[in-house]
């Protein structure tokens, strides 16, 4: 089996003005594995996720998707050059992203949201896209809502539609940016259940989350970020059971109460 990781992040850095948010982060995400990123607010988790698909342009470092460099190319003189937007867009298709605020397009039906990118970006015809869309909605258990508008759905349902929308692009990996943080506790469970199913199906996932239960039970690896660096990293049993870093221990003791 090809051992190229689905996502490889090498020495990733990001500054906003004088504020250095990411100070050189490196990690691999193997195919079919789930990596959870935990850490306090402001530790750089969301920025890291957004740098992977270039919603934020990294200030330094590299991201590889299936071995292919994302966003930058090194030219003959060894200089790093930002790729044209069209090239970045081509690679973004392979990374599904789910946001904290769902970000469904309110003027389209649920199915419309799901099939928009497959049709307009992948060039699929409507019939094929609709069949795929129905399939993705079934995976998030929302087949019966296909013709509704997002405004008529609960937060949990909206987030599941957002997951279906990302799945419809048949991405190589899924990025989740605090997908349950703006949901009431009773709606959080339905979204986490869908995410666990995806993890069980072998979907490659990076999940930025405050849900310690999910990070512990559903991930293959956990990264604890602090001040723009990976402070602790390992299988969940180790990070949750015997963290080496004092800060990680403090963070977990606060969040596991």
């Amino acid at each position: 089996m090809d051992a190229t990781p689905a996502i490889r992040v090498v020495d990733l850095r990001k500054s906003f003005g004088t504020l250095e948010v990411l100070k050189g982060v490196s990690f691999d995400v193997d195919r079919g594995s789930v990596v959870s990123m935990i850490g306090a607010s402001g530790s750089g988790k969301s920025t890291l996720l957004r740098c992977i698909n270039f919603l934020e342009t990294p200030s330094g470092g590299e991201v590889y998707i299936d071995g292919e460099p994302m966003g930058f190319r090194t030219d003959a003189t060894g200089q790093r050059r930002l790729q044209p937007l069209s090239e970045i867009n081509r690679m973004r298709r392979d990374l599904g992203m789910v946001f904290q605020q769902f970000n469904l397009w309110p003027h389209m039906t649920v199915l419309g949201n799901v099939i928009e990118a497959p049709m307009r970006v992948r060039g699929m015809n409507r019939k094929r896209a609709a069949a795929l869309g129905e399939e993705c909605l079934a995976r998030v258990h929302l087949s019966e809502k296909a013709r509704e508008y997002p405004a008529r759905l609960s937060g949990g349902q909206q987030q599941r539609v957002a997951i279906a929308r990302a799945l419809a692009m048949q991405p190589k990996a899924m990025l989740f940016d605090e997908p349950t943080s703006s949901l009431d506790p009773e709606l959080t469970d339905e979204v986490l259940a869908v995410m666990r199913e995806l993890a069980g199906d072998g979907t490659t996932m990076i999940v930025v989350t405050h849900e310690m239960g999910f990070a512990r039970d559903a991930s293959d690896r956990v990264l604890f970020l602090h001040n723009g660096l990976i402070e602790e990293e390992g299988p969940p049993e180790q990070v949750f059971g015997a963290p080496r870093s004092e800060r990680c221990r403090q963070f977990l003791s606060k969040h596991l109460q």
Partner: protein
Amino acid sequence: MSDALRQSLDLSLFWEYRQVLLSGLLFNVYVFACSAVTALLVGLAAALLRVNRSWPFRWIGTVHVELFRNAPDYIMVVWVHFVLPLLLGAIIGRRLEFHPFVSAVIALGFVYSGYFAETFRAGIQAIPIGHVEAARACGMGERLILWRIILPQVVRRMLPEAVNQLVSLFKATTIVSLIAVPDLMYNVSMVTATEMRPLPLYTGAALTYFAVIWLAATGVRLLSERWRSKIYA
């Protein structure tokens, strides 16, 4: 009842000249439609300049909006018809003349583009950035995002305000008679000159304008409310 009042309420004269007057009204609709399309297209372009990331573009957009929003339509119609051809003629070095209809459409189209630009801009800025980021994350390009994600939402948001502006634009078409566009007001003046009975003719014209504008605006509002309510439930 005074004689003057009785005269103004006797619309038989208006009815007698209905064909001439109706053809005038059709001219109003024609001028309205062409200037509305101009105003919407130019207004959208100006709004896109106004929200551009680089300041020279924003500056051009702002100048456009301020210039045309603060120019009285009456003066613009006259200026575009009589002065603009002289200016352009001097630049290209030959005599230039605009058809009154063309002058009317340019003048009203540009004046109202200033208002529409601001309505478009407000609509664009009201779209949460997350909607755009979600589209980018799916690999959609910026033009696709504008046409599929931003503008359909902007149109729905701006409709109530846009209907008000379109009503104002329709009313403003009555001033094109100034430069001899044969619209309803122009034809009323012509008939008045021969019949010497201005009261019923002007009353009839006022009632006609009211009826046409009220019916069209109410219809559009009803239809658009139903359409908008689906997404803002």
